[in-house]
């Protein structure tokens, strides 16, 4: 993959998978057993996901059955129809996409610059910054909502994409800085310098040499940020009180309402959940290869 030229010098930056070595009979038996175990574990892990999808195609009236039905034999798509028709799915989808997009871009940009600073420079305050960024993550979020609301209200940013995105970015940047730090450190500055000697401008050298090498790291951090922003609930609840500006998790919450006139329709909840998970799953599967590469080198600091 892209990092191949670096591999000999710095194995830590390699991304992608290494082809398996030649097989030897000695390991074959072990390998078969391993394959079986892997498949079994995979099935166990995916089972709850399957159960969500299975339930989402089951009529609500059947979910209370004593004996679990493992296949949607009475399958119906009505749950999806009702969930989407119900209220606000499309506007929530838009809102979620907008917030997630802004957050991911901001997180990546800010964290990347900060990572550049702490991995390429020694300066006073560097250590404090690294430690502070780590400790910020340790503050429980459950007690912050009143202050967050007051702040957004004072800035007239309630119900806006910007307001929530600022809060999300602040919450996600710390981890991403840590993650990207390793990547940047993993790319020798000499490489960039060599390119500049060859006549590229600094920006050019950065764009042509450094940036591609960082791609897996940015993808990995991006996925993390995506997941956080996509699924966040409490901040969204406080910062987006207006009905039309709800995000998908708030929209999902609407299905969990038992009240005077109706009970919770769990089949619909599962259909709604599947709809929320779907974009993430597709996105994950698409970036899967790059991400595994990315996660590695991020954590293994160069």
């Amino acid at each position, binding site marked *: 993959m892209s990092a191949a030229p670096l591999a000999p010098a710095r194995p830590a930056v390699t991304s992608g998978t290494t082809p398996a070595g030649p097989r030897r009979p000695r390991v074959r038996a072990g390998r078969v057993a391993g394959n079986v175990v892997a498949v079994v574990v995979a099935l166990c892990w995916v089972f709850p996901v399957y159960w969500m999808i299975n339930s989402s195609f089951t009529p609500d009236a059947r979910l209370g059955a004593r004996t679990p039905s493992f296949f949607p034999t009475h399958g119906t798509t009505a749950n999806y129809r009702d969930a989407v028709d119900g209220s606000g799915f499309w506007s929530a989808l838009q809102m979620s996409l907008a917030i997630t997009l802004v957050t991911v871009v901001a997180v990546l940009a800010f964290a990347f610059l900060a990572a550049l600073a702490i991995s390429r420079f020694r300066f*006073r305050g560097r250590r404090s910054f690294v430690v502070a960024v780590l400790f910020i993550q340790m503050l429980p979020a459950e*007690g912050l909502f009143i202050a967050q609301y007051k702040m957004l209200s004072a800035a007239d940013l309630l119900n806006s994409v910007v307001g929530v995105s600022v809060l999300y970015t602040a919450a996600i940047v710390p981890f991403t800085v840590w993650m990207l730090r390793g990547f940047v450190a993993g790319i020798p500055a000499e490489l960039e310098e060599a390119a500049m000697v060859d006549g590229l401008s600094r920006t050019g050298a950065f764009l042509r040499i450094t940036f591609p090498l960082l791609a897996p790291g940015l993808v990995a951090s991006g996925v993390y940020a995506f997941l956080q922003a996509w699924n966040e609930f409490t901040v969204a609840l406080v910062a987006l009180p207006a009905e039309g500006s709800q995000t998908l998790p708030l929209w999902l919450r609407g299905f969990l309402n038992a009240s005077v006139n109706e009970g919770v329709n769990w089949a619909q909840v599962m259909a709604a959940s599947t709809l929320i998970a779907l974009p993430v*799953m597709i996105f994950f599967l698409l970036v899967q290869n790059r991400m595994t590469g990315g996660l590695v080198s991020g954590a293994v600091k160069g």
Partner: protein
Amino acid sequence: MTTTATGGPGAAPVEAAGAPPPPVRRRRRPRTPYLLLVPAVAVLLLGLGYPVYWQVVTSMQEFGLAQQFGTAPPEFVGLANYVEIFTSDVVWVVVARSVAFCLVNAFLAVGIGTLLALLMKGVGTAPRLALQVALLLAWAMPMVAAVTVWKWLFDWRQGVVNWLLVQIGLGSFENHNWLAQPLSFFFVATVIVTWMSVPFVALSVYAALTQVSDEVLEAAALDGASGAKRFFYIILPIVRPVVSIVLLLQIIWDLRVFAQIRLLQDAGAPVSETNLLGNFIYELGIGRQDFAGAAAVSLFVLALTIVLSWPYVRTLLKEDES
């Protein structure tokens, strides 16, 4: 950007005495790193500055719903809220429970994750892909949905788990209520939290493993190194940095576990015996509108996490400096 730094206010010389060994690259001037940090620091101040300030101030006040609505002025009470925490035996029980839960879950997730990563490394492409996809799907599932599904699986009446146990002849599990006793409640919670955190660990460690060169391993095997030896002398040193950072993150995150417990409690559980710190803060703040108490406990949890993780963080930092 590369012009000579004139040393703006406060921008002291970089290579102060006692600072880590001078950097290799000197061509950039000290102002650059500060400029690079500006956006991140700005967004942190913007997003967290006021809330954290508010939290600190409120933790030293009497601040409930009446103060929130302005019908009574917030009264400065100094450290009274903290004194209350330290003298309350409820808090310490919750702290002990949370720390235990956090450590068990963090080590389980990292342990299982690492094992799965090793497994992925050792198996053929198809099973590996199956495992990878399964983990990714689990990771992508929204939390509310995940907990709800798990709640169903462990439901006393119609849960698949009880059904399976009865099918294999353990009749006593008919209508067994997993959430009734704190211990089995936390067993279920641990299953859920571990299930949700393993994908991140496994995929990170696996990615690190892909960097272990097969040639080296084979050479070692030919030289007669046992499996254990190869693991400890070749594999471990390479994946160790990943594992330690992942472990630290799991500890931080697991100490803040909240929503999973809350959603499980909604199904009927002995609440006060199953609260973790996050739930305790939520109950104080949102449940009982004692915002000052919630703020004080939050800051206390922050301090506690820092103290607990400090030795570990120091080691990480040392490695970082080297």
